[in-house]
């Protein structure tokens, strides 16, 4: 009896076998193209921001306009309140205190409390493979800066990095093996806490092609997101005095 396998298949059967092979080969080529495209994106560190902007479906001028109108309304109201207080005299100190508190809160000099998210960035613990840029496995200052920037963009009202509040003069910088935030040194993991509308912040973080997506392409373990019902952020603790900059006295008015 003939072995059914060891005989020459001609015509249809042979073409079918080769065709299946061709289908798989085509798929493999496409997969290789896809993987290499992905390897490229992380190397272009500025590309991601452009991608994020292009992918962002929420560029919404109408809501910005409405927000501005609200702001004008609020300023007019506070203006008239101030005028009222000034006329009454004894209420003026109360008003001033309120304004001071507002300014302090905006500058991050008070404690802040509210719902938000926590973003945890970690160095990759995956073994290093060839064709793999080791730099990508490490959390850099620019990753932290971009996450913070993205959070502000998504409407965060207060942010802290590993417990250090982000103030008006906060800087983030890579020095040697650690990340400096306002001259405090942090190594991985880095916890970024933000107060704001949690769903919006979360959505901004998981945006396809966004900041975190880029980091996660290297290793999904490098990023962790958590929605927090109530954060309590400590105040900015860095120096607040100005030596060079002064407030102009607008006597000309």
């Amino acid at each position, binding site marked *: 009896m003939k072995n059914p*396998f060891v005989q020459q*298949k001609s015509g249809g059967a*042979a073409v079918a076998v080769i*065709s299946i*092979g061709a289908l798989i080969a085509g798929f*493999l*080529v*496409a997969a290789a193209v896809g993987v290499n495209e*992905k390897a490229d994106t992380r190397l272009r560190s500025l590309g991601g921001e452009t991608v994020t902007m292009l992918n962002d479906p929420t560029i919404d001028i109408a809501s910005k306009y409405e927000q501005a109108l609200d702001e004008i309304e609020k300023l007019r109201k506070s203006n008239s309140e101030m005028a009222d207080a000034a006329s009454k005299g004894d209420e003026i100190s109360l008003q001033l205190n309120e304004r001071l508190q507002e300014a302090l809160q905006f500058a991050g000099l008070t404690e802040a409390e509210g719902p938000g998210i926590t973003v945890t960035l970690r160095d990759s613990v995956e073994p290093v493979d060839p064709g793999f840029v080791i730099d990508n496995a490490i959390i850099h200052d620019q990753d932290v800066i971009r996450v913070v920037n993205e959070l502000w963009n998504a409407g965060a009202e207060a942010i802290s990095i590993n417990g250090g509040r982000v103030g008006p003069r906060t800087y983030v910088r890579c020095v040697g093996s650690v990340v400096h935030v306002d001259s405090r040194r942090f190594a991985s993991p880095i916890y970024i806490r933000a107060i704001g509308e949690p769903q919006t912040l979360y959505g901004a973080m998981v945006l396809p092609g966004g900041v975190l997506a880029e980091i996660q392409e290297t290793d999904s373990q490098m990023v962790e997101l958590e929605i927090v019902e109530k954060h309590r952020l400590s105040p900015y603790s860095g120096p607040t005095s100005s030596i060079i900059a002064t407030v102009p006295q607008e006597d000309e008015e």
Partner: protein
Amino acid sequence: MILIPIALLIVGFLIGITFRPDFPVAWAPYAGIAALAGLDSVVGGTRALLDKRFYPEVFVSGVLINLTLAIGLGAFGTLINLNLFVAAAVVFVWRLIQNMGQVRRLLLSRYRESRGRTRSETELESKELSNN
């Protein structure tokens, strides 16, 4: 006949592009060598088919073993800190070009044969007509 594998190669590519299999970036060299091994097998199989030496078990085992060997060698290369991906790629591309050349030659000779045959057939037909 030869167009069916080519069409399916393109279909496979389109499927891959549409569904975007989510591989880690570290797999990039393995994906590349797997793609080359697949192409090499398909072109080799086509050549054998045209040569009337096509055995499916040779083809299937060739696909599987070449793929595993290439990926295994690549992995071994990373172990001993040598880039064997390039070595495998060179061999595959060399074979690819050789087999492509063979396929082209076989197809051309076939085309020439078929033209010759049709001419003689028509000559026969015309002779039969004149006899009647």
